[in-house]
């Protein structure tokens, strides 16, 4: 194997040094025009004084510190955009992530007081909005300009749809007066474009119905099973002016246009479920996304402990049940095969039999808020229409206290076997790393695990997310969730490569503000493991992280290729489609975007880089990229067994359902 070049820059010992080194190299290069500097505006070597530093323009903090200025029916009146923004504010829209475009609407939302973040690409901003929502359960919005900006979001709207994220997708859409004429630029038909990837959508065409359709949007976002809602705003709607609310149709408050009422199970159904659970020897709760959305984790834990039931959390967000709990089966895949009863609660995206690691005789109860989905994909022994929290509270009242020592012991034995299996692979990876002077993905993931959960940091503190093929599969096995919303499954169900970093930056915004379950960890750094293939989709959002001082530590597993390169190994004239230039420097790119960069190719370097990066994040809110240099051959079992393997579902590392 090719060794890393000796002169490859090893991780610098401090934040300042990393920046200074890059500046010196940049200044030395012919035509260098940009030099990295700290977001803290430090002054560097005088020789470089003529080259401006990267800095946050004064207008950004000034704008963020301005008091909200919502529209008013007085004076010039409210625009349609301001009417809509007022409704968003009243509905407690948690955040807007956008790129400029749809100007009237995003400006109105920002002015109304909704926390608003502008970034570099609409697609990544859409992923950031999704990430914020995944770790809080709150409704978030994303926006872009009519044609190109909107279509750039598509991959991440689809990801949000697969993850059942309550995401409000906004986009401008020309003028009604220009419909079908290809007048000037950007004509497109938005609503057909999002068919199949939204819960509800509408092109607003009647200005006086802007509030009415805003209500439609939030009714869909906050009722039943969540999902993206797509509204597109022609200029006649966004710019219309209203001096009199009487001109607006259905201008009601939210308690008139939607309800907080929840589906309640009948006592007989709860009794029947309790009877089945009581008779089972090895019952297993599948705590799906609905348990997180409905913040039902406390009662879930209470029931599990009272009745000694195993629990696995599923969905796009991890942590509704702590991985280190003795009743967690997240790390006990072999025990899943022993379950004789599974109770799906709030599993919004249902697998089919054979996709979850269950035995063919397992009995099934499914609790779901809407009737239409019961029985889809997975035949039922008992289906119950109910809100997740309501069901768990009702069940808690009727389940007797019970001990299940044999089941608990089986869970523990399976957990031990699973952990040993991963440690064995890690040991093998360590040998490969030493042999090749490149970092095996098992080593990367284990080092991060030990740093976050075995050192000085509170294991519950750091929110993580991961993606990529090789990197995501290995990271999934070693990242943990000990509290609700601690980990984002970035590739959940849709399997997109690339939104990871933007998604974690969005989640980081939620941590920065301490929203919902992130409140106890307000301001803590967040960490993302992604791949070199994935980085291409999100890397520029390091600028966004720097602008908003969201401290993210991004490990980029750099194996010089798309992870699927083995698909080309037996095909002539194909490999060129799968490989990149070797030894690209994502750490240097990060420095150019105002973040820190670290380059590592040994476990020892990685350990030190993690420590430095975490310090910079925690103390100075500065983000870092750690370029983890690897080899593409680590993906292949033919070269370096075991190569990649899919993770058992459900459990840690699961991403399909």
């Amino acid at each position, binding site marked *: 194997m090719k060794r890393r070049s000796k002169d490859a820059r090893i991780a610098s010992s401090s934040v300042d040094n990393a920046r200074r080194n890059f500046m010196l190299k940049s200044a030395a290069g012919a035509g260098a025009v940009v030099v990295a500097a700290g977001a803290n505006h430090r002054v560097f070597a005088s020789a470089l004084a003529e080259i401006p530093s990267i800095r946050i323009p004064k207008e950004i903090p000034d704008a963020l510190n301005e008091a909200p200025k919502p529209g008013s029916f007085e004076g010039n009146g409210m625009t349609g955009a301001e009417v809509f923004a007022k409704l968003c504010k009243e509905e407690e829209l948690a955040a807007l992530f956008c790129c400029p475009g749809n100007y009237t609407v995003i400006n109105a939302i920002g002015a109304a007081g909704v926390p608003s973040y502008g970034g570099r690409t609409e697609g990544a901003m859409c992923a950031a909005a999704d990430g914020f929502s995944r770790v809080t359960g709150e409704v978030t919005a994303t926006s872009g300009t009519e044609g190109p900006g909107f279509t750039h979001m598509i991959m991440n709207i689809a990801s949000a749809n697969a993850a059942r994220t309550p995401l409000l997708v906004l986009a401008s859409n020309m003028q009604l007066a220009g419909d079908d004429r290809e007048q000037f630029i950007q004509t497109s038909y938005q609503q057909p474009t999002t068919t199949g990837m939204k819960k509800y959508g509408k092109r607003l065409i009647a200005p006086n119905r802007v509030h009415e359709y805003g209500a439609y949007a939030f009714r869909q976002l906050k009722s039943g099973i969540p999902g993206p809602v797509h509204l597109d705003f022609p200029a006649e709607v966004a710019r219309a002016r209203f001096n009199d609310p009487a001109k607006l149709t259905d201008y009601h408050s939210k308690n008139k246009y939607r309800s907080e009422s929840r589906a309640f199970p009948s006592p007989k159904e709860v009794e029947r479920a309790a009877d089945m659970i009581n008779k089972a020897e090895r019952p297993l709760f599948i705590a799906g996304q609905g348990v997180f959305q409905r913040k039902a984790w406390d009662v879930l834990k209470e029931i599990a402990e009272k009745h000694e039931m195993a629990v696995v959390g599923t969905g796009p967000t991890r942590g509704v049940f702590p991985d280190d709990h003795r009743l967690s089966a997240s790390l006990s895949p072999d025990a899943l095969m022993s379950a*004789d009863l599974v109770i799906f609660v709030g599993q919004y995206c249902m697998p089919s039999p054979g996709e979850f690691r269950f035995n063919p005789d397992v009995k099934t109860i499914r609790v779901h808020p809407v009737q239409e989905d019961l029985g889809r994909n997975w035949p039922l022994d008992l289906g119950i229409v109910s809100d997740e929290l309501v069901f768990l509270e009702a069940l808690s009242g009727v389940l007797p206290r019970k001990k299940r020592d044999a089941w608990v012991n089986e869970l523990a034995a399976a957990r031990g076997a699973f952990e040993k299996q991963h440690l064995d692979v890690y040991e093998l990876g360590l040998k490969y790393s030493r042999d090749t002077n490149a970092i095996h993905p098992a080593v990367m993931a284990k080092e991060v695990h030990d740093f976050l959960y075995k050192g000085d940091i509170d294991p519950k503190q750091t929110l993580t997310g991961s993606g990529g093929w090789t990197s995501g599969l290995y990271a999934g096995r070693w990242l943990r969730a000990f509290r609700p919303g601690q980990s984002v499954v970035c590739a959940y169900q849709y399997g997109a490569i690339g939104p990871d970093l933007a998604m974690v930056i969005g989640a980081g915004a939620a941590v920065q503000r301490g929203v919902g379950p992130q409140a106890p960890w307000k301001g803590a750094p967040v960490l993302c493991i992604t791949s070199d293939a994935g980085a291409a989709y999100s890397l520029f959002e390091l600028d966004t992280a720097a602008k908003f001082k969201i401290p993210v530590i991004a490990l980029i597993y750099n194996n010089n290729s798309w992870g699927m390169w083995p698909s080309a190994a037996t095909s002539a004239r194909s490999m060129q489609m799968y490989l990149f230039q070797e030894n690209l420097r994502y750490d240097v790119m990060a420095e150019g975007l105002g973040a820190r960069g670290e380059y590592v190719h040994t476990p020892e370097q990685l350990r030190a880089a993690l420590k430095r990066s975490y310090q910079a994040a925690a103390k100075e809110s500065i983000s870092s990229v750690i370029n983890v240099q690897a080899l593409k051959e680590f993906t292949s*079992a033919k070269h370096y067994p075991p190569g990649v393997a899919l993770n*058992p579902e459900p459990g840690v590392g699961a991403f399909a359902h």
Partner: protein
Amino acid sequence: MPAAPVKARSRESVRSRTNRVAETLEGYARRGVFRGYGRDPAIRDGKCSFKLLWHYDREFELVFDARRNTLRFPLVLPNVPSDASMYRDLKRFIEERHSSELPEHRRIDRRKAVATPTNRRGNVSLTMRLRGGDDEYGARKLIHLVQEIFLVFLQDGSYYEYMVESFDLDPDRF
């Protein structure tokens, strides 16, 4: 009522045993374990064939031979050379399913049934020899075993590339 001739009783016994196996398999089909299920209406030489649409939407043939007391999948895994480490690992995995160290609900009880793989030119078949006359037990345990081969053995081992190549799977959909 006069007793039925021995030959007729024997035929009846084969039919009723076959029906019992069929009911067991139909139960799995009703539970969604198989996405498709079919039974050859004819019983020839004590044998009846079933078709199961199962893992990765592949069709599995299962043959119940009442006279030989066997249930057999003629093809479970293709393209596994008999001298490959994968085949050795598979034999060990199947053997371990009979271990007394496993909890009872996970174990194949040797007193009732024994599962063995056979490799012919790379095609791995799986035979469950039934002991003690409990055909339903044998059928259930064989279905459990194949489920574990696909959900545990293949997924936990280094067989991702094997699965893509041998089952002609799209790596992005897999």
